[in-house]
C-alpha cells in the first residue's frame, strides 16, 4: 500500500491490483473514519476525500495504515440480468482481434459472471470485471464523439453499459434497453460496486 499526496483535501492510496483496491475500499468504508467524506475506488487506487476542518491527509493516512484490510471482498449487492442485442458496430472487429467468431464473443460475454467493481466516467457507469480473461480487448484508437445510452462495450479487460449518450472509446458489441441510470430511482445507479451482472442474449 502506497500513499500519494493529493492536495489538502484528499489522499490517494495505491495498491497492487483491482482485488486489493476493492478490499481496501470495503475496509475504509466499513471503518467510517471521522472527516472522510467520500471514497472513489478505481482499478489500482482508492481516493479518500476528506474534510480538512475535521481531519488531515496525515491523520487519514495513519488511520488507514492501521486498518486490518486484506481479505475483504466486495459486499454482495445482488445480481442483475441485462438483456443484450449483440449487434454492436465493433463486434466483428472484437472477434477478429480475439481470433474467434462473433458468436464466440457473445458466448463468452453471456457465460461470464460480471461484477461491478467501481464507478466512474459518468453517473451510473460501472466498470465490470468478468471471470473470463479471454475478452480482453484494447480501447479504440480514436474515441467516438457519441455513444448512445444502452451501448454494451468492452475495453481493457472490463465490460460496461453506457448509461447516457456520451463520447467514448470502448468497443461496442451490443445494446440493451435496460436503464443504467435514473435519478428518480433509489438508488439511481442500477450497478454499484459488488453488484453481479449476467448478460443474456435478446433478439430485440
Amino acid at each position, binding site marked *: 500500500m502506497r500513499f500519494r499526496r493529493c492536495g489538502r*483535501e*484528499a489522499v490517494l492510496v495505491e495498491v497492487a491490483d483491482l482485488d486489493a483496491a476493492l478490499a481496501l475500499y470495503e475496509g475504509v468504508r466499513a471503518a467510517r473514519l471521522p472527516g472522510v467524506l467520500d471514497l472513489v*475506488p478505481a482499478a489500482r487506487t482508492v*481516493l479518500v476525500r476528506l474534510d480538512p476542518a475535521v481531519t488531515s491527509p496525515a491523520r487519514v493516512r495513519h488511520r488507514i495504515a492501521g486498518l486490518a484490510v486484506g481479505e475483504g471482498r466486495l459486499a454482495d449487492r445482488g445480481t442483475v440480468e441485462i438483456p443484450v442485442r449483440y449487434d454492436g458496430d465493433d463486434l466483428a472487429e472484437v472477434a477478429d482481434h480475439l481470433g474467434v467468431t462473433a458468436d464466440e464473443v457473445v458466448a463468452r460475454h453471456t457465460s461470464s459472471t460480471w461484477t461491478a467493481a467501481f*464507478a*466512474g466516467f459518468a*453517473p451510473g457507469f460501472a466498470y465490470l470485471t468478468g471471470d473470463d480473461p479471454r475478452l480482453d480487448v484494447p480501447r479504440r484508437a480514436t474515441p467516438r464523439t457519441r455513444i448512445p445510452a444502452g451501448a454494451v462495450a468492452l475495453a481493457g479487460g472490463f465490460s460496461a453499459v453506457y448509461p447516457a449518450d456520451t463520447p467514448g472509446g470502448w468497443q461496442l458489441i451490443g445494446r440493451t434497453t435496460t436503464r443504467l441510470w435514473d435519478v428518480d430511482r433509489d438508488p439511481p*445507479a442500477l450497478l454499484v460496486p459488488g453488484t453481479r451482472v449476467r448478460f443474456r442474449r435478446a433478439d430485440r
Partner: protein
Amino acid sequence: MTVVRTGPRVVLKDAGRLGYAEYGVAPSGPVDRAAYTAANRLVGNRAGAAVLECLLGGLVVRFDAPAVVALTGADATLLVGVTEVPAGVAVEVAPDVPVEVTTPRAGVRSYVAVAGGIAVPPVLGSRSTDALGGIGPPALRPGDTLPIGPAPAGHRGPAPGGQLSGGLLSGGLLSGGPAPGDGVLVVTVDLGPRNDWFAPRTIATFLTAGYTVAPASDSVGVRLSGPPLPRSREGELPSEGVVRGAVQVPPDGQPIVFAADHPLTGGYPVIAVVHPRDTDRLGQARPGQTVRFALATDFLEDP
C-alpha cells in the same frame, strides 16, 4: 423568485453532492467556494444553502415577496431598481423590483444569495447543477420561477447595508478574488499524486513558466496553454479518482486544472493539486490571464 433574464449562464450551486461516488457521481458545488460561503453568510443563511452562480452578469430576477439578497464573487454590482448596491452588502428588496447583476469589471462568476436559500427539490442530496454529469437543476431560463426557503430561524436579518468584514475581503472582493487585470495570477500547488510521471526539468518548467487561461475553460476545468509538460514514461495510467484543483496533463502536455464540476475519475497523470483558495481564484480568471504555479511553502506532511 422569477427569472427575467439570464445572461450567458446561471446555475444553482450549494455545498455539493458528496457521498455518491459509488454511483459515479462527482461532488460538483460552487466554482468559487469562498464567494459562495460569503454570500450565504451575508444573508444569514445556514452553510450549504443554494445560491445562484452567474457567469458574466446579465441576470435579472424579481421577487413576489420582500427578500434579502447579497452579491459576492466577481467585481460586479447589484442593481436594485435604479439603486446600485456593491458586492458584499446585504440588501432588502421590495416585491416586483428588478434585481440585476451587472457585467463584472474583473472576475467571471458572481454569487447571489437570497435569505432562506433557493429551495428547489434536491437531487441526490444537493441542489447543485453538475454541468458534466447532467445532474441537478438545469441552467436557468427566462420565465423560470424558483421557490425561496423560509428565512433562517433565529436570524433577524442583516441591517440593510450590513457587511461582512475582515478575512473574507480579499482584494476588495468577497471571493477568493480574481486576479488583477494585467498581473500574473500566482497559484499555490502541492506536487502529486503523479509528479513521478514527469522529469525534474519538466517539473521545473511547470513551476516557473507562465500559462495562459484558454477560452475553452468552464466550470469543469480551467484549460491552460503554455510550455508543454511531456511525460517521462510510456504507457497508460489506469483511471483514478481526481479532486477539485487537480492539475491534469493530457498527452498534448497542456495542463487542465479541474474546477467544481470535474469528472469523478481521470486517466491522465495529475502533476500537482492547487490549494483550495487558489482554485477559487483560478475559477474567476478570464481567458488570456497569465497564471504561474508556485510550490506551497508551508510543510505538507507526507500523506
